[in-house]
């Protein structure tokens, strides 16, 4: 009887879900499925869909002397979150490697250095794909990922995080496009010549995107480079929507209604992203995924340890080492729980509720701070799929989340670029 009721209830949910084009499809057979069966089904789905992570700062690792992407690294020893063996282990089919150049002086010399540093990182990615052509390939179009998957290879796409390397020379965008760059994050943690950051302590400088930044957006539209608003201020988001002739992306941002953080997106922004046809790619930074929990036991233990310590100015080197060891031991005793896969899917649920199933994806920000409990590195991304299946998302929905939505935007951006270029002839 109970089973019948559950079936009736899930059938209603299915019908209701089918009535809304943006709602996720609820599976109707999960009530009789064991945990092992659910995991097995999730892993099969994970294997079938193209899994695409839209943001990793792994090029930073590629400039570490001696770092080899073909070797498997222990994330708990090295801190590294992505290499090719772990992409294979995690069933991660495609990834955007973002060349990040830290914001610095905004003059001719600074711009020229930023361009050189950006190119060095891009060249490091290209060299890595060439050196590992048996396992990965440099991808330039949406179709390339599917073609590479058929060959049993992982697709490596290029991006730039922070438009600083563009400097004040619009022609640099075409140079980067020709190198393979397919999205550019306009700004990073402080304002640049293109746009205002969400986190610059000096506040807004351009009140959104600058006039030069608008030219940059239009040139990106012309070439077929996706406009990424992650790290930008709210005004940058609204300006990008208004200026861009193609849908935009947030390559690694979360939902502010779930976790209040300046880097996350408000419901109004999520709705507008849906109207724009763009996509918000969920990121795996604990601070963007949940509020840090209270830890009174730890606080008391730290206070007790400090109270028993010599004044720091009077400590010699040995005493400082001993104090560091004591604090490290205390941290082991009283860990601060990181965010987990439930937090991630809570954000996905919210974005689906506000913007619809067609406007959410995954951008882990591995090697840039991303990595949480259960999704600590590229080898564990299948845990996202398992939780999505557990919550009733269908294979079709999961395909959209893992790649379909981002690929739709990518295709739109390339189609619009072709239209712009043909109209300019």
């Amino acid at each position, binding site marked *: 009887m109970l089973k019948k009721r559950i079936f009736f209830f899930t059938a209603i949910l299915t019908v209701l879900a089918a009535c809304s084009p943006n709602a996720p499809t609820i599976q109707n057979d999960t009530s009789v499925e064991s945990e092992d069966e659910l*995991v097995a089904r999730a*892993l099969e789905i994970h294997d079938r869909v193209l899994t695409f992570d839209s943001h990793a700062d792994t090029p930073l*690792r590629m400039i570490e002397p001696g770092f080899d992407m073909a070797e498997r690294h222990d994330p708990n020893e090295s801190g590294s979150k992505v290499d090719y063996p772990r992409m294979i282990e*995690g069933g991660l089919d495609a990834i955007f490697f973002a060349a990040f150049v830290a914001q610095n002086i905004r003059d001719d010399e600074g711009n020229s250095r930023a361009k050189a540093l950006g190119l060095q990182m891009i060249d490091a990615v290209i060299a890595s794909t060439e050196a590992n052509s048996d396992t990965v390939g440099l991808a330039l179009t949406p179709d390339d990922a599917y073609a590479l998957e058929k060959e049993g290879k992982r697709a490596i796409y290029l991006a730039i995080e922070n438009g600083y390397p563009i400097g004040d020379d619009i022609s640099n965008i075409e140079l980067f496009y020709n190198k393979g760059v397919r999205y550019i994050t306009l700004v990073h*943690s402080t304002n640049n010549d293109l746009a205002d950051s969400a986190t610059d*302590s000096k506040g807004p400088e351009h009140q959104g995107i600058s006039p030069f930044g608008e030219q940059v957006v239009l040139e990106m539209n012309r070439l077929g480079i996706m406009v990424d608003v992650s790290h930008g201020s709210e005004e940058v988001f609204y300006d990008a929507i208004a200026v861009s002739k193609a849908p935009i992306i947030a390559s690694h941002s979360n939902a502010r209604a779930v976790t209040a953080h300046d880097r996350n997106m408000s419901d109004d922004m999520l709705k507008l992203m849906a109207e724009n046809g763009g996509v918000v790619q969920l990121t795996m930074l604990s601070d963007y995924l949940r509020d840090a929990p209270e830890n009174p036991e730890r606080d008391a233990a730290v206070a007790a340890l400090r109270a028993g310590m010599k004044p720091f100015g009077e400590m010699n080197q040995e005493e400082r080492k001993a*104090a560091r060891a004591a604090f490290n031991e205390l941290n082991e005793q009283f860990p601060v729980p990181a965010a987990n896969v439930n937090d991630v899917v809570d954000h996905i649920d919210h974005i689906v509720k506000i913007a619809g199933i067609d406007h959410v994806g995954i951008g882990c920000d591995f090697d840039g701070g991303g990595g949480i409990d259960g999704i600590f590195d590229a080898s*564990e991304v299948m845990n996202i799929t398992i939780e999505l299946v557990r919550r009733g998302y269908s294979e079709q929905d999961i395909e959209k989340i893992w790649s379909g939505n981002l690929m739709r935007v990518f295709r739109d951006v390339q189609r619009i670029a072709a239209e712009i270029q043909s109209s300019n002839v």
Partner: protein
Amino acid sequence: MKPKYTGNATVLALLFLLTVQTALAHPLRLSLSEIEKATDQEKLSVSLRLFLMDIREALLFDPENDELAFCQPNEAENAESLLLSYLDQFFYIKVNDKKLDLNIASKRLHGEGINLALAVEFEFPLTEHISSLEIKNAVFTDLFFDQSNIVYVYLGEETESLMLNKDTPIHRLDL
């Protein structure tokens, strides 16, 4: 290839390992250093940008403790010496195999809140030709196993970027 499911035991183990490292941590385990010599200048300039929370944790074992008051009117008398004593263990520059003595030329604060960073500038008179540059940057690797220290090198028209960390704290450039 079928992906691997890590299972609950592994998840718990990772939770433990991760959270041991995240306690008291700034969310981004990064520092940025720049080493610069312009062709027409007879000095090597070195700049280190470090999150202030990390400096406080390293020196005072408390990321919230502002007792040293860097760059404030009430900056503690021993603030610079404590910082230099720490940096001496984890950071150096060798030019032509000779280690440079760290003396702070200037310092200033950037940003606010958890993004507040201290920029520390060093300058070294240098008339000789640079044939090798060895850099050690392992700052905060004693606090965070996944600390990444980005190093930008500008020598004349040449630029180079490196990432140093716990596994690879030292790199030598032969020029």
